[in-house]
């Protein structure tokens, strides 16, 4: 299992290849398209993340010691962003997720690349992912 830190380093490396915002956006869009779809039964009000202009559903479950996330959004770029977060946090131990320092976000300039409302959405997504991990860990 690759560590959260290691995965982040990989993402930073990926983003260093891009010269301009257009390539970054295209990359996000591709990630969005490739995101494994969430099961329909999890696309419910309870799994909606507030604070996004687009709708985002997030589901988490615990398998052995590991948390698995699946998600979906009606906006493709939002899907790309959540895909990156899932690649970093899914398949990790709850304790690791809760304490994860997601410094890659600043390193790749993700927030600056996004509108203010989207940056808020990003913060809400991370918060919800950590909260789910915390809740499942205590079960």
């Amino acid at each position, binding site marked *: 299992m690759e560590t959260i830190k290691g995965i982040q380093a990989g993402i930073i490396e990926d983003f260093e290849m891009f010269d301009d*915002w257009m390539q970054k*956006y295209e990359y996000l*869009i591709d990630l969005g398209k490739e995101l494994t779809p969430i099961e329909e039964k999890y696309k419910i009000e309870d799994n909606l993340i507030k604070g996004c202009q687009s709708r985002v559903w997030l589901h988490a479950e615990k398998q052995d010691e590991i948390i698995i996330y699946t998600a979906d959004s*009606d*906006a493709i*770029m*939002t899907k790309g962003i959540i895909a990156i977060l899932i690649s970093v946090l899914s398949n990790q131990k709850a304790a690791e997720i809760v304490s994860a320092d997601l410094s890659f976000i600043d390193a790749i300039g993700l927030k600056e690349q*996004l509108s203010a409302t*989207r940056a808020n959405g990003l913060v809400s997504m991370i918060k919800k992912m950590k909260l789910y991990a915390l809740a499942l860990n205590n079960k």
Partner: protein
Amino acid sequence: MFDLNKIREQFPILKKQVNGKDLVYFDNGATTQKPQSVIDAVSNYYQEENANVHRGVHFLSGLATDKFEETRNTVRQFISAKHNHEIIFTKGTTDSINLIANGFRSLLKKGDEIIISELEHHSNIVPWQMCCELSGSTLKVIPLLDNGSLDMADFNNLLSKNTRLVAVSHVSNTLGTINPIKEIIEKSHSVGAKVLIDGAQAASHICLNMQELDADFYCFSAHKMYGPTGVGVLYGKEEILNTLPPYQGGGEMIKEVSFEKTTYASLPYKFEAGTPNIAGIIAFKSAIDFITELRIENIAKYEDELLQYATSEILKIEGVKIYGTSKNKSAIISFNIEDLHPYDIGTIVDKMGIAIRTGHHCTQPIMKRYNIPGTVRVSLAVYNTKTEIDICINAIKKAQEMLS
């Protein structure tokens, strides 16, 4: 008709670059940019004229008061109202509507009805819901037809002797529909109901004449008509404003205060408690002067030309659907592109220097009506150009390419 370059030169922000591209500002429905004359009037007030109004005997206070009242006079002329004291300064359209909703509440009882429409901005929905909740009256809603115009047949059915107030917008900020407010006012008056018009999206685009229109209340915001933020107007007929209780208590709005009994000032001061946005109100005159110098009829004609051009260009985009296609329309175009989320489109074109709005535009009932998460909205003003429309359309097509 008029010199577009000369108009654009008056708006310093239009020279700005955003994300390395010339700014194309198509979010005028949210707020318009400000000409140099308005910017200068604000700073001139603080540099040369700053004093409180209607209070001091000293020179500066007199000067500020005169200029403040000059704006009131200019607003009266601009909307052809009968009296200066029928012009109340507020913080904006929202504040104006709340002022009336609050005052009207005390005149309502259980069984009374208020009518609004399905295309209202949340500012013309929520205050009436609150008003109904507290007074026990009922809220009725005029539904929309598919083309984004009001179902007037349904309106006729909703009107009854129980109707006390009808509150509708002059122009829809999401669909661009220009509502038949003259007809609405006449019909409402025929059952004895009062009418409030939300003119936020009309005041800088449509020539207004309060005496002809016969609206009981008309509300608008300076910041959507090339003026400063934090300034709004409530026009109200004298005889009706006099029947309403004050909104806020405080300085300025009183005649005499004692602990036994306070008496209120006369119009307009009764509704202007506290120190107002003096700089903004003084500068608002410059904004109205800007409009009247160009003549609002010319502005309307030019904006309509832009609307026709933008509409025909947008319709060339594959899979596009425009929401709001009524014949009588202002220069606001809401649309979606098949399979694409408006938010994705907005984010990408922003990178190309284009300011458009995406989302529900504070009109969630309209989104529900059409069953959509939001729209992309282009809203135009007098300084916009056909070249800018071309740039915007190309950016949208580029976004479409990237997203599909």
